[in-house]
């Protein structure tokens, strides 16, 4: 459903993600753990393009969300001037040069171009058109994608100027996905489910952290999302409020919601996730089903990490 293809993310000179790929199927619950600064939040935020990856592509249900990345399309690179110049040079070096011939792109040259990132300069019309073709064929508007993939933040981010009910209905009504009545009905239903219906006319500042986070979760549910991204949903909560939020997330998981959770709650990840990833230093270092992941960790960095947090 969500497909992350070899993404890199640089903040100025700092390389936060160094080539991460991930395929998430419908109904999967993926937990991402790792030390702080390992890039796990950035990785999650790339999935709905709150951060734009520097390189790489994000796909949602076969539609491209990011600009097309030439390095993932060798046939596009083959149309670039750099590639053709290098082909030419190679052809000249060989006695019977086959430069200019239509054939499979030369993987060695592609690798070299990629390694030295030689595609920064002007690369000619054909190259640009090929890249544009890919985008035209597959590109999806990021706002449409975000309507289908909800996000829950560490700091809740409820709209402070709106009441609880307005928080829930603003997006579906503004985006004309639901009428005011439909959205209100759906929101009331969800608020009753989490037992906070009587708070519907309160402003967020009057709520506790646990209440805010549960409302933030149902705010994204009003949109009927196909997947939910959780960015450390319990890290900013008082310990006694962690339980109620995890309980709600667990219920959603049991109902079959596709979810990606960045978390420090190891027990929760073990229980709820169908797959656990360990990120460190901008890379996925280990990926496994929860029993093996926590039972027999392979990577030394993960062993060290687990021994510290468990």
């Amino acid at each position, binding site marked *: 459903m969500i497909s992350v293809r070899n993404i890199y993310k640089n903040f100025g000179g700092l390389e936060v993600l160094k080539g991460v790929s991930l395929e998430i199927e419908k109904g999967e619950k993926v937990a991402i753990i790792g030390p702080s600064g390992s890039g796990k939040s950035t990785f999650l935020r790339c999935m709905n393009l709150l951060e734009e990856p520097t390189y790489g592509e994000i796909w949602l249900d076969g539609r491209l969300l990011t600009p097309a990345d030439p390095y993932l399309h060798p046939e596009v690179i083959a149309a670039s001037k750099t590639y053709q110049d290098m082909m030419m040079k190679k052809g000249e070096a060989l006695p019977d040069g086959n430069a200019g011939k239509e054939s499979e792109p030369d993987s060695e040259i592609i690798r070299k171009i990629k390694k030295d990132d030689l595609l920064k300069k002007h690369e000619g019309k054909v190259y640009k058109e090929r890249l544009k073709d890919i985008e035209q064929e597959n590109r999806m508007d990021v*706002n449409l*994608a*975000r309507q289908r993939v909800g996000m829950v*933040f560490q*700091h809740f*981010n409820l*709209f402070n*100027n709106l009441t609880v009910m307005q928080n829930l209905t603003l997006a579906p009504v503004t985006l004309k996905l639901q009428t005011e009545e439909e959205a209100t009905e759906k929101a009331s239903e969800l608020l009753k489910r989490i037992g906070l219906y009587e708070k519907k006319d309160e*402003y967020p500042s009057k709520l506790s952290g646990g209440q805010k986070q549960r409302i933030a979760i149902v705010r994204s549910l009003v949109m009927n999302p196909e997947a939910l991204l959780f960015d450390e949903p319990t890290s900013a909560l008082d310990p006694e409020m962690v339980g109620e939020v995890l309980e709600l997330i667990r219920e959603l998981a049991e109902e079959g919601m596709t979810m990606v959770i960045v978390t420090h709650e190891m027990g929760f990840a073990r229980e709820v996730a169908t797959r656990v990833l360990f990120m460190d230093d901008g890379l996925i270092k280990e990926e496994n089903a929860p029993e093996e992941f926590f039972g027999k960790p392979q990577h030394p960095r993960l062993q060290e990490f687990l021994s510290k947090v468990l």
Partner: protein
Amino acid sequence: MTVQSIINKWNLFIDAFMNKGGYKEVVSGLVNTLIIALVALVLGIIIGTIIAAIEVSPKKGRFMRVLDRICTVYVAFFRGTPIVVQLLLGYFVILPLIGFSLSSVVVAIIIMGLNSGAYVSEIMRSGILSVDIGQMEAGRAMGLNYGTTMRKIIIPQAVKNILPTLGNELISLVKETSVVSFIGVVDLYKAFRTIGSSNYEYMMPFLVMAVIYIVLIMIITFALKMMERGLRASDKR
């Protein structure tokens, strides 16, 4: 100065004010002052908000960069020249050049509004930056676009944060209107000046003028306080 001469001056003022029709001048001057200040503030808030939204937006694409450049020049001009110069330029240079005729009150409103826009844009910008970045992210993450999130989430919170400063802007606009007489608008200052020049007695007219300005500002301050209280409904305080 003897008490008697002060009483004489006061009687002369009352005579000019009541019997020679001075009060009509004052009323129309007061109305002009208030209209110019209020409409200019509304204009300034609209212009300032648009400029601020452009300035804080992530600048992607040539179009946004050009807009941003235009805003920079605009703010530089209106903050970099005295408002009297702007009024004179507008009324005696720009209007004749484009061959358009407008009443001096309308010109005053437009120029004061444009001028205020430059200042409000800075106020608004700091207001927008004071709103937590998470609010924008939450809006965007639900599929709302930049403009809608700005309009429905960020700007309402920004305005609440900067309301005291916007109040200051209104107050200084009311006071600054005293320069519009340069292009022939009868405002509060001009009205009292006219009363004074009818009998060459300026002491009382200007004294009364000062009192009226103070009372006016006190009323505005009170109204702003009430408004602020209303907007604090979503606050802890």
